[in-house]
């Protein structure tokens, strides 16, 4: 029967799709582990640099000069760093990021320019007709710091030149394997994190606190951007893992119901044939 053949064909195609989903899920699981490890490996550095920056920011200004990256300016232009993935098949991850960025663009009083990382964000900027200051794509799955330095350089230079006066960093935070929270933080001007316990002892700064701070601040910004990208990578893999698990579960469910349909069709056929045969036999016997 043509009908059961159609059902068979569908089962076949869904089985193939399920296999692909399963494979993608397994790859994502393996990569997620690596991405997570990478995100945690950089934590000691992040903690230390944060502590030193907050220690140094507490130092009295001896000549009244505030480092440009610390100085608050009147906002005439805001930049939002929109971090997304390059590839899809990761559930609502990018949609959530786009949503967050889109709604916060509306809240800004100053005109907004986007700095986009990832192909999905690039598409978002094109569809919503947003101006982009820079677009970066093709960051590898386990990025080295080196790879993200050009991004940081563009942002720090743009800020120093006055292309924008306020920079937000929007990225998904890895809460757990099944939960990613879109967050948005102020990147520039640098707001020194509150120091947990003011250092009682005096440090000897060489060559001087100003110089150390001036060298430290760009690295602090670089570290934050690098860290956000690592978080994104961990989120991407875990979101993909969950999305693909759901997809292969759904595929199996669909397959089960189609197999039931197929059986029913087959049974109907048999019944009909038996009816035909017994009807024919009775007619002959008469």
């Amino acid at each position, binding site marked *: 029967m043509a009908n059961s053949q159609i059902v068979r064909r569908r089962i076949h195609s869904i089985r193939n799709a399920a296999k692909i989903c399963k494979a993608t899920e397994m790859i994502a699981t393996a990569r997620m582990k690596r991405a997570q490890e*990478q995100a945690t490996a950089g934590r000691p*550095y992040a903690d230390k640099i944060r502590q*030193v920056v907050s220690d140094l920011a507490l130092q009295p200004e001896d000549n009244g000069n505030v480092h440009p990256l610390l100085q608050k300016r009147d906002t005439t232009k805001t930049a939002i760093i929109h971090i997304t993935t390059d590839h899809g098949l990761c559930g609502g991850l990018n949609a959530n990021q786009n949503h967050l960025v889109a709604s916060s663009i509306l809240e800004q009083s100053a005109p907004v320019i986007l700095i986009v990382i990832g192909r999905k964000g690039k598409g978002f900027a094109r569809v919503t007709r947003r101006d982009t200051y820079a677009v970066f794509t093709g960051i590898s799955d386990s990025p*080295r*710091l080196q790879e993200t330095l050009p991004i940081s350089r563009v942002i720090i230079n743009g800020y120093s030149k006055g292309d924008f006066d306020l920079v937000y960093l929007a990225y998904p935070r890895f809460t757990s394997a099944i939960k990613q929270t879109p967050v948005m933080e102020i990147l520039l001007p640098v707001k020194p994190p509150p120091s947990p316990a003011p250092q009682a*002892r005096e*440090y*000897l700064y*060489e*060559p001087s606190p100003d110089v150390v701070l001036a060298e430290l601040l760009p690295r602090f910004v670089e570290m934050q951007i690098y860290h956000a990208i690592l978080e994104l990578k961990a989120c991407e893999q875990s979101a993909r893992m969950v999305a693909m698990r759901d997809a292969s579960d759904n595929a199996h469910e669909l397959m089960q119901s189609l197999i039931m349909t197929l059986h029913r069709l087959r049974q109907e056929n048999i019944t009909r044939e038996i009816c035909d045969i017994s009807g024919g036999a009775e007619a002959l016997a008469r």
Partner: protein
Amino acid sequence: MTTFKLEIVTAERMTFSGDVSEIVAWGTEGQMGILPHHIPLMTMLRPGDLLIKKGEEEQYMAISGGFLEVGLDKVVILADACERAEEIDIERAEAARRHAEKTLKSSPSRMATAAAETALRRSLVRLKVAYKRPHR
């Protein structure tokens, strides 16, 4: 033997963590040695080799800039990049050195000169450290 705790961290990972008795690093004012009970200090590091001593044991690392913080009983080095002697790829470092030298010879712009000089210094440090490793 008095020792102190040394941690070397980069943005990517913790490269070293352990008790040592002396370190010698390149600060902004020149080479400096740090022994236990040093006063609290925060200094910038130039690209250079780092000597770590634990008793008689010596170990070299290549550091391409960063910061060094001496706390009460702990020293933390925030390195831009840091490699142990055995991790260094001599061929790659040689290639980088040759490339930087070639760039410098072709009399580039001031920006490119500065970049090439930094690259040259970094590759020289790597090579210096790499050749100090114990021969196997």
